[in-house]
Each structure stands twice: as structure tokens, then as C-alpha cells.
């Protein structure tokens, strides 16, 4: 078993560290700071932390006002509340005026588990990626979360970063390394984890680990399957994706999100216009989801390594 770690804990810790060197950082939460772990920042910098209460519309608006006066607001709550209750405000008060607000949400996807359908957000990526001027990032693990949060401090403009609730498996080693090699996190540039010949899996969030396991398992069947961590959903790394489409001739996308409009949707749009390529989408198939332990939900809704393996076999059939 791989070691696992909590991305949201890493987020809170990183934010608290960044607060030291960046006095312009302010943090806002909507009564979930102990879940999003912005409480770590609040404890250290109480005067720069604002809890607006259970009020997501106001959350976004207050952040907009702070940003327009030169502050760098990090706004956090669960994805379901940020995107479903604060969307109009994010669009009108933050994205349209191009303000430097970072919305970092937790509890994205089915990883919320037992809380069930009211708390699942399986369409946030579809929604946020359709907004102009908005950068959308989904880190693969806790190590990459730290890199992404640090990168957002230097990035100008509206951004949305999505984390799961559950502790999930680690892809990267300490200091953002993979197989001992030091990497550099760049917004808009995906990470090639495994080179493939027979198919490529493009994955985001906790599904990157599943994709790596699928690649390993398929090797036993004699297949060389590439794995790419597409941590930035927007701007999409078109160059790498088109190159892989040419090289391996078939692709699988994998995400803890609806197959409509997220990574699968983004890749399908790109390929259809630029290089039609057989592909399969692993994700939640237009359903709301039910309560349960998140691993069981990943099984039930088809988000595990096993499902990715099956998708690779199917997409291989399509190109034969």
C-alpha cells in the first residue's frame, strides 16, 4: 500500500507558512475552517482571517473587495458551496473584473463519502472551466498540493483549486520528486509520469494514483500505458495531450467528477477539433451518488484502477 496524506491539511499548513512571507495574503472561510484547514492560518494570523459565516455569496464578494484593494485573498469552503452558491458572485465580482482571488475548495467529488449527494460536487470543474479568465487546478496528491498553492501566490488573476476530502495515496516524493527526480510545478504544464506506447491515461486528483496502478497492472498483460498528471485543467496542456494522442493513438481520461464537462469533456473537445482520437472517459456517469465510505463509492461508481484498466482495454479495441 502506498502511504496516503490529506491534501487539505497540506493546504492549511502551506497557507500558514506562506502567510509569513506574504503579508498581502488574507484568508476567508464560510464556517468550515476546521474542515478546510484554513484554521491553521487563522490561528497564526487572526487579523488576516475572516470568517463570514454560512454565507457563500458574501464570501466571494468580500474577497473581491479585498483583492481590489491589493490584498491576495485565499477563499475556502467545500466545493459544493463555493461553486453552487457563490458562482454568480465569482463570475460577476471576481472573474469578470479579473481580480486576484484564489478559491481553494475541499470536499470535491465522491471523496466526500458518507455525507452523500447533498455534499458531492461532481460538476464544479465543468462549471469553473467554462468561465473566462479562470485558471482551474486539480492536484494529484498532498505533495503537489503544496506546489500548486505556492504557484498560485505568484499567479495573477482568478483561480480555482480543487481538493478532495479523503486522505489519498501519494504520487510524489518529498519535495515534489518522482522516482527520485526533482520536478517543477508549472501552471498549465502537465507531468508525464509514465511513458506509454499502447495507450495514455490522462488523470487528475486522486485518480492519478489509480491510473499509475492501472498502468502497472496492464504491464503484466504486455501493454505499455502512459500516465499523465494533468493537474491544470485550464489552461489545458494541449501540446502534451495532442502529442500523446499521436503517439499512442488512444486515450483514457480519469477523474472524480462527472464524465460531462470535466477533464473528459475538455480532452474530448480538444481532440474532436484538432486530432480525432479514440478515447474513453472514466468518471461518474451522470449520477448524483449515494452515501458510503469513499473507497466503496469509487468501486460502485467506477473510479478505481480496475475500471481504468477496463477502459484501456476497450479503447485499444477501438483502434484495432
Amino acid at each position: 500500500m502506498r502511504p496516503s496524506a490529506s491534501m487539505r491539511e497540506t493546504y492549511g499548513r502551506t497557507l500558514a507558512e506562506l502567510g509569513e512571507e506574504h503579508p498581502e495574503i488574507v484568508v476567508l472561510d464560510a464556517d468550515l475552517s476546521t474542515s478546510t484547514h484554513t484554521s491553521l492560518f487563522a490561528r497564526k494570523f487572526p487579523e488576516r482571517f475572516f470568517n463570514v459565516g454560512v454565507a457563500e455569496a458574501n464570501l466571494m464578494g468580500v474577497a473581491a473587495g479585498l483583492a481590489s484593494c491589493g490584498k491576495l485573498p485565499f477563499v475556502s469552503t467545500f466545493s459544493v458551496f463555493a461553486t453552487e452558491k457563490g458562482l454568480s458572485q465569482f463570475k460577476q465580482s471576481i472573474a469578470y473584473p479579473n481580480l486576484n482571488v484564489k478559491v481553494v475548495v475541499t470536499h470535491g467529488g465522491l471523496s466526500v463519502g458518507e455525507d452523500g449527494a447533498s455534499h458531492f460536487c461532481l460538476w464544479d470543474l465543468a462549471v469553473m472551466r467554462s468561465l473566462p479568465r479562470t485558471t482551474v487546478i486539480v492536484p494529484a496528491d498532498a505533495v503537489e498540493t503544496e506546489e500548486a498553492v505556492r504557484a498560485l501566490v505568484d499567479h495573477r488573476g482568478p483561480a480555482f483549486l480543487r481538493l478532495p476530502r479523503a486522505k489519498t495515496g501519494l504520487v510524489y516524493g518529498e519535495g515534489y520528486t518522482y522516482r527520485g527526480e526533482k520536478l517543477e510545478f508549472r501552471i498549465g504544464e502537465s507531468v508525464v509520469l509514465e511513458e506509454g506506447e499502447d495507450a495514455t491515461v490522462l488523470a487528475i486528483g486522486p485518480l492519478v494514483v489509480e491510473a499509475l496502478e492501472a498502468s502497472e497492472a496492464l504491464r503484466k498483460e504486455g501493454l505499455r500505458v502512459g500516465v499523465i498528471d494533468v493537474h491544470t485543467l485550464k489552461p489545458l496542456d494541449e501540446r502534451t495531450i495532442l502529442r500523446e494522442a499521436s503517439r499512442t493513438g488512444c486515450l483514457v481520461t480519469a477523474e472524480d467528477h462527472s464524465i460531462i464537462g470535466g477533464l473528459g469533456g475538455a480532452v474530448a473537445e480538444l481532440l474532436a477539433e484538432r486530432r480525432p482520437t479514440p478515447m474513453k472517459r472514466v468518471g461518474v456517469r451522470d449520477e448524483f451518488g449515494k452515501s458510503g465510505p469513499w473507497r466503496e463509492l469509487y468501486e460502485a461508481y467506477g473510479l478505481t484502477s480496475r475500471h481504468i484498466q477496463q477502459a484501456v482495454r476497450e479503447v485499444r479495441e477501438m483502434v484495432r
Partner: protein
Amino acid sequence: MVIFDRKAEPHTPSLLRELAEKARIIRRDSLIMTTEAGSGHPGGSLSCADILSVLYFHHLRYDPSNPRWEGRDRFILSKGHACPALYSALSLAGFFPREWLRTLRKFGSPLQGHPDSTSTPGVEASTGSLGQGLSIGCGMALAARLDGRDYRVYVLMGDGEMDEGQVWEAAMFAAHQRLDNLVGIVDRNRIQLDGFTEEIVGLEPLAEKWRSFGWNVLEVDGHDLLQVAEALDEAERIKGKPTLILARTVKGKGVSFMENQVKYHGTPLTREELERALKELEG
């Protein structure tokens, strides 16, 4: 630096005459602009013209040659559909050429159909989807406090806008944070797009609502320049809580056939109506 800072000036009859004249031009511009554009919201532009006149030509501190000057007071037009009046005031204050007014709502114009902070100098917040301005004002007021700056933040809201839950989220938050550098102004003209506010979702007792949310509330006649100016001064003296100025106004104020008419919330005047209206405003 050409900082405009006149709030310390006494409210003399000559000042009030000057402000009345500016309000008259704001009304005139708003009607011409919307008729020229063939769409827009003349009624609510006229109801807030006097308030804008006092703010921009007496009370606010700003530098039109440097719209982003850090020490400026911030004004947010939360009722963004009244932007013709705001654009007129900004042009009169010197933020941009008067000729721009004729381009309102046309493709490529810096004057969008609703305020856009990225295209119009002097516009502090992008508004138009109602209910969002006060939250932005809260953020600006917090930033002033964090930076130890003495600028103040003013948010002009419509009364129809009071239907939005976000207004009350922001109202609670501002009181909790004791934002005494924040002033909300409600343009209480009693009409929203579909009809009279009290017939759609009754707002009264509106002053009591704001008071119960922890605000200092001042009630004024929104067309009495002296009352508006004095209320703005009074708001600066209140410590520990935000102030809400409830300004009783008349939709379509200044043009007899427009006053209190629901129709002119979102319908511009025809050319003939415009001529009649302009004659009245000259008189």
C-alpha cells in the same frame, strides 16, 4: 495629482446651487444616453442623480488623473443598471471625456451596459447582477482597516435589490466587523422592474430592518442635497458600526411624466419624449 477633496467645505447656498446644477446635468445626460442607446434604465438613474452629485462634487476624495490612487474613497454602484448616472458623474468629475457618454452600450465602447471596472476609469466594481455591491464594499472597508488607511467606502443600492439574500449576509457581516468606514445608501424610490416594491415583496419597515441588523440608520429626503450632505458627514462621526442612509427618492425624479412610473425603470424615452423631458429639465 489633482486630488478632489471638498468634504470639509461648509454647505453654503452656493455649494448647494452648484450641486443642483450637476444633478441636473446628470439627469440630462442619463436621458440622452439611454435614448441614444435605445435601451437602459432611465428611471433609477434620475432617482439617484442628487445623491451622486453630492458624492462626486462634494463628499468623495479622489484623483481623476489617477483613478487608482490608493488613498481615494471608494464608491460602488451596486444598482449597476443606473450606470448612465454614474458615467455622467465620472465624466463631469474628469475621469474621461464627455464624448464617451454618447457611446453607451455600443459595441467597443468603454461604457458597458452595466459597470465594468476593467473598461471604465473610476468604476470601482463590476456590478449589474444585483445584491453584490455591499459585500465588495465590506472587503474594501476591511482592506482599509488592515492597511491603516483612512479612505471610506460608499455603496449605493437600489431598494428592489433588498430582495437579494446576499445584501443581508453582507449587512450582518459589516455590523459584526464594526465597519464604521462603510456607508450603505439605499435609493428608496419604491419601484423595481415589475412594479412597486411593496406589491412585489414588501420591504417595510426597512429602516427598522437595517437597525436590527446592527447598523446606524439615517433617513433623509434623497433629493434634498443638504440632507444628503449632512447625513454623509454624520456617518463619518459614527464609530463602531456601519451607517445606512435610507434616502427617500422618486423614480424618474425631475421629469413630470416619468415620476413614479414603473414603465421607465427599464425603458428609454422616445426622441419626442426626450425633447419634452429636456425642456422640463432646462426650466
